[in-house]
């Protein structure tokens, strides 16, 4: 399978592109240069033409690209949540439909359900309450764009929601955003995200639009991953409980 990974220069995207490359042909796109990818292109997420060109010969899309900062020196076009973020998803899906692509995986965030975290056991059915902040509002709107495209067009879209992304491959990144994700139930290692992308790109989905929580496995977790385990066969390999114990 030929997979387009957008945002392949990023903290998560670089690992998704690397790991998917073990089983698939990967083309990475980003506004910044990408290391270690034989097929990579620098594109502007604001450009429909760039996105359409990048999908030449592609079977599935892992869409991680999102405007996360200013990217000094690598800033073609404008980069805002509602612009390159939400409009970027619209243009990406339009191009995917044009190209006859069957599967897109969109990277969302668990933060869009933030105000409901005072409840325990939020499933994927929880309706987002993103507030008016650009990132969470943009991701919520982009999920809605995905939902519409999957309803209207012959492609299926898996949305994955996660947060607290840590890595055991680089020292100093073992705990991501402890202010937002202070408890070890809401974390996930980068390589498990890559695993989830591989599954979400290839496994049959019960309906054309499905949302999955992707986290490490813990009993009594706040964001249960039962759905991803059952439908995608996701089994997280890394657990940050040990790190958490060490930090006590």
């Amino acid at each position, binding site marked *: 399978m030929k997979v387009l990974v957008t945002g392949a220069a990023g903290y998560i995207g670089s690992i998704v592109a690397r790991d998917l490359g073990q089983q698939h042909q990967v083309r990475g796109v980003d506004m910044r240069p990408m290391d270690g990818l034989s097929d990579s292109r620098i594109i502007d997420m604001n450009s*429909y*033409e760039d996105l359409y060109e990048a999908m030449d010969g592609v079977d599935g899309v892992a869409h991680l690209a999102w405007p996360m900062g200013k990217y000094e020196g690598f800033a073609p076009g404008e980069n805002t949540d*509602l612009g390159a973020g939400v*409009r970027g998803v619209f243009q990406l899906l*339009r191009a995917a439909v044009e190209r006859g692509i069957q599967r897109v995986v969109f990277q969302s965030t668990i933060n869009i359900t933030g105000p409901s975290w005072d409840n325990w056991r939020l499933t994927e059915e929880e309706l987002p309450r993103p507030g*008016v902040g650009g990132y969470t509002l943009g991701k*919520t709107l982009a999920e809605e764009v995905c939902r*519409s495209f999957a309803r209207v067009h012959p492609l299926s879209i898996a949305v994955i929601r996660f947060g607290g992304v840590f890595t055991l491959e680089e020292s100093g990144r073992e705990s991501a955003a402890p202010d937002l994700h202070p408890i070890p139930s809401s974390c996930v290692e980068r390589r498990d995200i890559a695993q989830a992308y591989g599954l979400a790109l290839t496994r049959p989905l019960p309906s054309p639009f499905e949302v999955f929580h992707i986290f490490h496995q813990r009993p009594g977790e706040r964001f249960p991953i039962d759905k991803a385990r059952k439908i995608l066969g996701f089994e997280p390999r890394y657990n940050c409980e040990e790190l958490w114990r060490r930090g006590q």
Partner: protein
Amino acid sequence: MKIAITGAAGFLGRILTPKLAALHEVFPSDLVGGTAGMEQVDVLEIEDVQRLCADVEVVIHLACAAWRDELSGAENETRILDTRLKGTWNLMQAAMDAGVRRVIQVSDLCIFAGYDASVMVSEDFIPLPDTTAYQQSVYLSELIGREFARLKKGLVLTLRLGKLVAAGGLPAAAEFDPAWLDTTDAVEAIVRALELDEFDGLVNWGLYNLAADVPASPYSLLKIKSGQFGFHPRQNFDAWRKENRA
């Protein structure tokens, strides 16, 4: 009442502005403004909308981008999405910061396109927009309104209108569409929306559907007719409806 209007030079804005000006102090604005009585405001420029929102009680938000044939499809889609998404966000944020009492967000019933014609939809139905930039932009801008409505009770009233037609100038042979809404009724509903103190339902967000009140309409008007709004559209297009023509 001091009322600012965005998109005041558009189809509905041109009809609404003089009617409102007879009742209130209005500050019409448009992207193609700069003439007497029409301030030039680009909703994509935060300073522009901050200036517009300063010292007004209500903002009526009509601004949206029209399709321009001289631009490419992708360029048009960019303008349409950006104007509704970033433009609406800018406007709501500026209105909240300036202490504006109400933003009336004029929306479009077209986002129920995904329902079978036999289904009667109400405000409780989830919109099923198609994947054109237009319908997506309308639907997503409503969700922006919903999030701002959570922050300040009464701030956002989203009024979804049917297909606007001016009954006065409508050819007798025009084929009736149950989504029609006479522009006079649309203007009257907006005038009424200015006065509303409370919204119906369990939410802070005022959300109302309005089309012509005709038999077998695909849109339930129960909420706007019977609730706080208490609004009854007058033009029911009797002369154009098939059952009256037989």
